[in-house]
Structures are given as C-alpha cells and as structure tokens.
C-alpha cells in the first residue's frame, strides 16, 4: 500500500521506479518521490494511525460500537477551533493550528461524554450528542468562513480532510503528538480490558476507572486534535478499522490496538490512493473517500444492531 501510495499520482510510477526513486538520488523520480509523494504517504500513515487508535479506544471506553471521532464531533471541535484561529488570529501554520485543535478536541470530547450521559451512555445517546455538536460546530465554522472570503480559499480543502498539504515540516511536528497518544493508548489497553467488565470488576482487578477514563480522553484528544490540525476532519476511519480488526483479534485491546495501528494507516493511504485514481487528474479528498466508504458500514451496523 505504501508503494502504491507513492506510485500513484498525476504521473504513475511502477514499484521498481518507486524503489529507485526512494534510494537513488540520481534517479529522475527522486524529486517526485521525496518531495511530493513520500511526505503525503507518511502523513497518511500517521493520521490513519491516530484516528484508528482513537476510534478503537473510544469504542472500548464507551462500550459503544458506533463511536468514531468524526461522528462524535471531536474532529468538528478541532475544526471549529482551527477555523477560529485562522480567521481571527491569522494563524496559518501547523504548529500554530495544533494547539487550537487540541483545545477544541478536548472541549468536545468532554462535552460529548457529558451530554451523552457519562458512564450511562448508550450508543444512540452518544451518536446523537455527537450529531448535535457536529451540527452546531459546523454551522459555526461556516459562519466564520463566510465572514472571511479569503479564508474560504485557504481552509476550503482543509475542511474536507485532505492530505494534499503534506510536507516534512508538518510531519516532524505531528509525530510527537501522535507518538504520545500512541503510548498512552497502549498503556491504557490492559486497564481498559478490565474496565470493559464494568467498574466494580475493574476495581477488583486493580484498575482505577477514573484515572483510566481521564487517560483515554487525553489520548483521544492528542490523537484526534493533532490529526485534524494536520489534514482536516476525516470521518469514519476510527469507526471502520476496529470493526474490521475485531473478528480476527477478539475484543482484547492488547491485540486489537496493534492491529488497528497497522490497518488504519493502510485504509487511509488506500483511500487517498483511491481518491487520486478516481479523481485524476485532480484528486478526490481522502475525507470524502472515507465518508463514502465508511458511511455504508455505519448504516449496516445500525441496521443489524438490535
């Protein structure tokens, strides 16, 4: 998938050409690969990893098969914060965006959890709370954008969710956030397993439910906030992957998270490739592809659920 991600584009490269482009500075493909395709593919990897993990631990925390950072409005919270920073404070770089995005994501995570009913949350409640927040936040985003025609152009691609703005600088700044989120998520895997038995059983097993919830919320905020700051709100990756992984690994998060961490980037980079193939000579933004792919799965899950 990585090779494909690098190979596809306005100029198609064969796997052999990709390899020579990667390793041989003298190759005619070196510039294409290193300056355009490689950062984009790596960004896809990181963002996919972040969203997939966030989805998996949220589904575990809320015991809710429908949890997804996009659906629950967390990505929208980050978008709203970024739109605010771009329009009112003139922030235009990733390192500026990311703090706003983290703040927005944290606020919405807490809010959706509170509105959805905290520990008593049911899948339907959480999804509806997310839908409500999504609607309010996106109308705020469009209000901000309409007030600033110049920023429409700037943020337009960003609000769909696209990898097109990738460069190594963004990558370098994104990595620590995702890495921190990854570490926290992996650390939380064992206690989250215990928590899935219910609070009392978890306590008996030596876990501390309050602390775990706080940790998971921090991890989700880090992962979603930074991913959204880098490439805009991308929906359904966090929903799709855990469902694809669970039949193979079972519900044990210690197995699920690593598989998710491998498969989610594959999905995201794959969607990006698909978007570029279908949309050629331009591109179909990856956020659109995941929405169109993930939406039917969501509908299916709702349909089969009791």
């Amino acid at each position, binding site marked *: 998938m990585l090779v494909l991600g690098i190979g596809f584009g306005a100029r198609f490269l064969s796997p052999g050409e990709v390899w020579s482009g990667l390793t041989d500075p003298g190759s005619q493909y070196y510039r294409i690969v290193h300056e355009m395709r490689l950062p984009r593919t790596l960004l896809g990897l990181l963002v996919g990893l972040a969203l997939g993990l966030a989805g998996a631990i949220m589904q575990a925390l809320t015991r809710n098969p429908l949890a997804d950072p996009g659906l629950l409005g967390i990505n929208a919270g980050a978008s709203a914060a970024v739109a605010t920073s771009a329009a009112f404070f003139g922030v235009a770089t990733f390192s500026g965006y990311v703090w706003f995005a983290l703040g927005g994501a944290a606020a919405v995570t807490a809010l959706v959890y509170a509105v959805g009913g905290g520990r008593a949350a049911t899948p*339907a409640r959480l999804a509806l709370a997310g*839908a409500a927040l999504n609607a309010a936040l996106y*109308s705020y985003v469009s*209000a901000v954008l309409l007030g600033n025609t110049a920023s429409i*152009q700037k943020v337009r691609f960003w609000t769909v969710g696209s990898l097109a703005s990738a460069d190594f600088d963004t990558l370098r700044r994104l990595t620590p956030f995702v890495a921190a989120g990854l570490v926290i998520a992996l650390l939380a895997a064992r206690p989250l397993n215990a928590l899935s038995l219910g609070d009392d059983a978890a306590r008996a097993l030596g876990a501390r439910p309050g602390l775990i919830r706080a940790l998971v919320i921090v991890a989700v905020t880090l992962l979603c906030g930074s991913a959204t700051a880098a490439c805009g709100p991308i929906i359904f990756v966090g929903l799709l992957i855990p469902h694809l992984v669970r039949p193979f690994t079972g519900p044990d998060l210690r197995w699920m998270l690593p598989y998710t961490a491998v498969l989610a980037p594959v999905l995201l980079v794959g969607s990006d490739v698909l978007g570029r193939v279908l949309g050629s000579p331009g591109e179909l933004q990856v956020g659109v592809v995941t929405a169109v792919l993930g939406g039917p799965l969501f509908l299916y899950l709702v349909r089969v659920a009791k």
Partner: protein
Amino acid sequence: MSKVMVIRPRAVVIGAGALLAMTAVAVLTLGTGDFPIAPADVVKTLAGQGNAAQTFIINELRLPRVVTAILVGMALAAGGAVFQSITRNPLGSPDILGITSGAGAAALAVVILGGSSTALSLAAITGGIGTALLIQLIGGRRGLQGYRFILIGVGMTAILNGIMGWLLTKGVQMENARALLWLAGSFDGRGWEEALPLLGVLIVTIPILAVVCGPGLRMLEMGDDVAAGLGVPVKRLRNGALLVASLVVACAAAAAGPVNFVALIAPNIARRVTRAPGPNLLPSMAIGALLTVAADWLAMHSGYPLPVGVVTGGLGGAYLVWLLISERKAGRI
C-alpha cells in the same frame, strides 16, 4: 374513525400569539437596513399610506425577503411536525434524518455546474425526496420508529456531507462563495420568484397534511396496531405523509437553502406549549415562522454578514443538546 379536525382553544391561542409576535418582528425587520424606518411608518406603508421612498424600499426591497422567511419557516415547521409525528420521536426531524442534506447536496451539484435557479430548485426537491425514499428503504423494513431510524439518518447525513465537501472543492472561488452561502441558508436576495412557488406548494400540501393526514397521524402515535384497529390505513398513510412532508421541506430548502433546525425546534416547542397530541401542524407553522423571522432579524443585527442558517444552526444545536439531556433524564433514550 372520526375525520373531524379537533379545534383546541389552547392551540388556537398559542398559534395566534406566535403569529402576532412574528408580525411584530417582521415589522421590525422591515424597518431595518441602510435606510431605517420607524415601526409606525412601516405599518402605515404596508397599509398603503407611506411616501414614495418608503413604499419603494419596503414593498420592493424588504417585503419579499421577509415573506420568503415566513413561508420557509412555515414549510420547514410543517414538514418537521409530520416527521416527528410519524417517527414518534422529537429528534426525528428532516435535518437529522438527512433530508435537508440530500437537498443540499443535489442543489450544490447544480450550483457548481452553473445551472439556472430553476434547475437548482428541481435538484433540491429531487435530492430531498430521494434521500427520504432511501432512508425508508434502508430502515423501513422494521418500521420507522426508534433510534435506529434516526441513526440511519445520521449516517446518511455524514455520507452526504462528505459528498458536499467534495463538490465544494470542485468549484472555482466565485461559485464557492455562492454555494457556501446557499448551503448555510440565507434570505439575502430572495424575492417573489422564490416565495411564490413555495406559497403555491404550501397552499396545496398543508390542507392535505392537516385535514387528510392529521387525524390519522394522531391515532398513529398510539402505535401501529391501535391505529390499524381504529381503521387507519397505516402503511399508506405513513408513506403518503412522509412523501408530502419531504416535498414541503425540500421546497423550502430550494427557496432558501437548508435553514438548519427550524424543522426540529418549531414542532418541539409547539408540542410542549399546546400540550396536544398529533403533529400540531398549524401551531408549529406559526412558531416556525416566528423562529425564522426572529433568526433573520438576529442575523441582520449581528454586525456581521451572517446567514440566517448559521443562527438557527447554532441555536438549534444548543437546543438539541438540551433536548438530549432532558430526554435522558426522562429515561426515554
């Protein structure tokens, strides 16, 4: 089954009160603008007694916009009332079920392709009704009630929003500004050519919904079996009412863009204040008109060229959060 419409005094008083309040706000709105006119003069002008300048400004420039706002509010509220009655759920509004998004996506495609405003209206109507049919197809096997149906709508909305986002990136800058404005829902530059077709649709459909479907819908709220026992043709009534309501909502969206959440809030408020069962069609419409005109007035006074849909979207989102909390406390979800 009685075919008689029940007249409830409380509902009449509330409907009349809402209409009165709406008229007051409308008069305020008509006086607002680059050339402020005092409310007394507005009333005089409407009665045909104003001077030439005032008559031109009010009748030619501002009245069409206000009338469009009133009609859109009524249409959305009527559609929402029927939807909520059929789904037996205060959250079952066309905004959440994705009908408005369907209309939006189809209309956006036309805006991007540079079609005429007639094509845009037709596309919005087709998109709205198409989405309604699709949701029915996906969720209808086990009936339209319950949160499963709403979640299907949430999923549809997410897909459609993805498609809309993609369409937005396809257009050039000029059309995008136009498209975004349309998508937010706005009464800027709306006039008789939007208002009159909508008025026609309302004149035809509202009697159908109120007189033909109303009594049956009230019985349907007691459950399918009870309604069927009372002689209501359950399936036909539900499908028919849903189709007509989708048409009304889609026409409103075609006139002003998807003005968010009026369809959700107005029937909710109507039901709470009239305390009557059934869709509460007419009080809902009065409250819907009041809401839209008031939101438009707010949007004009925000000191910022804000489209009305953003105001209703923000208010509606907040209301929805509150509704979810109170529904949870009541133990219904």
